[in-house]
């Protein structure tokens, strides 16, 4: 564990990975989109099923990212792992982004298929709550003058939220089943056809690669920024003490 805790080592290891990741991400996105748009339209939903190639991977990433934030927060709190704290902080906005994509694309998918722009369906509602959990995390981590205090508090919040997510999901499912007539959204018939499944999985991989790429870039930037702040502090102290010595 402590082998990976060294920021310098992280910078060295991640440097060559980034361009490779970028290329892979672009490749998967391209292939996924091409296959997605070449797939035949669904017999029920027509071409709108193509929104699924954006909506479903975004939903998966929205949820997976929260697990990343929670796991990193746990590592930060339990082991004081320095990289973990940075990983959690940098991953959260990405999670919020995927959540937003999921909500917007879900709404646009619902409009022609369900006939309305917003439906309090269990999944969309849970994602909306998840969006606010992300926003709360981000707000809390920036709410203190001392950034360390902010990220520590946010770590606790992430774990509290992580425990709550299954409870929230369960209660929203329950609530939704009480208030909605049983409407089942069938994805292209009784089973997902390969022509839909393959692009979907490729896009899921593409989104995952994109997440890792962006996370690495953001973490690298964050580490550089910390170094910059540290250097600036050293300089400020040196200047202050030289003024003191000069008796000004």
């Amino acid at each position, binding site marked *: 564990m402590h082998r990976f805790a060294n920021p310098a080592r992280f910078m060295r290891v991640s440097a060559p990975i980034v361009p490779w990741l970028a290329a892979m991400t672009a490749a998967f996105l391209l292939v996924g989109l091409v296959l997605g748009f070449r797939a035949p339209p669904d017999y029920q939903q027509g071409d709108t099923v193509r929104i699924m190639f954006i909506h479903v991977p975004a939903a998966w990433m929205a949820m997976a990212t929260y697990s990343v934030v929670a796991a990193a927060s746990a590592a930060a709190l339990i082991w004081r792992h320095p990289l973990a704290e940075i990983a959690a902080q940098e991953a959260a906005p990405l999670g919020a982004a995927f959540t937003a994509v999921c909500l917007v694309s879900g709404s646009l*998918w619902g409009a022609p298929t369900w006939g309305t722009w917003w439906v309090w369906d269990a999944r969309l509602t849970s994602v909306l709550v998840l969006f606010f959990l992300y926003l709360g995390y981000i707000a809390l981590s920036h709410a203190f003058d001392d950034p360390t205090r902010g990220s520590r508090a946010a770590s606790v919040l992430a774990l509290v939220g992580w425990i709550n997510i299954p409870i929230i999901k369960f209660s929203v499912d329950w609530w939704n089943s009480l208030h909605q007539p049983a409407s089942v959204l069938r994805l292209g018939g009784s089973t997902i056809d390969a022509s839909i499944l393959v692009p979907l999985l490729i896009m899921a991989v593409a989104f995952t690669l994109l997440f890792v790429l962006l996370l690495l870039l953001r973490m690298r930037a964050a580490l550089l920024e910390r170094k*910059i702040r540290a250097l600036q502090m050293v*300089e400020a102290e040196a200047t202050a003490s030289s003024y003191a010595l000069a008796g000004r």
Partner: protein
Amino acid sequence: MDALSDFLAMGGYAAYIWPAYAAAFLILGFFTVNAVMRYRAAQRSLARLQADRT
């Protein structure tokens, strides 16, 4: 050109499909550009600071 306009029309659902893709592209694109710009800016600042010290 017919095939292209058919493609763009997306069976009549163009008003929903293209904005969805646009939103995804814009949101994720923003974060991508932001990540790259932030990293490059940090690199430049660090290089400047280290050059000043030497």
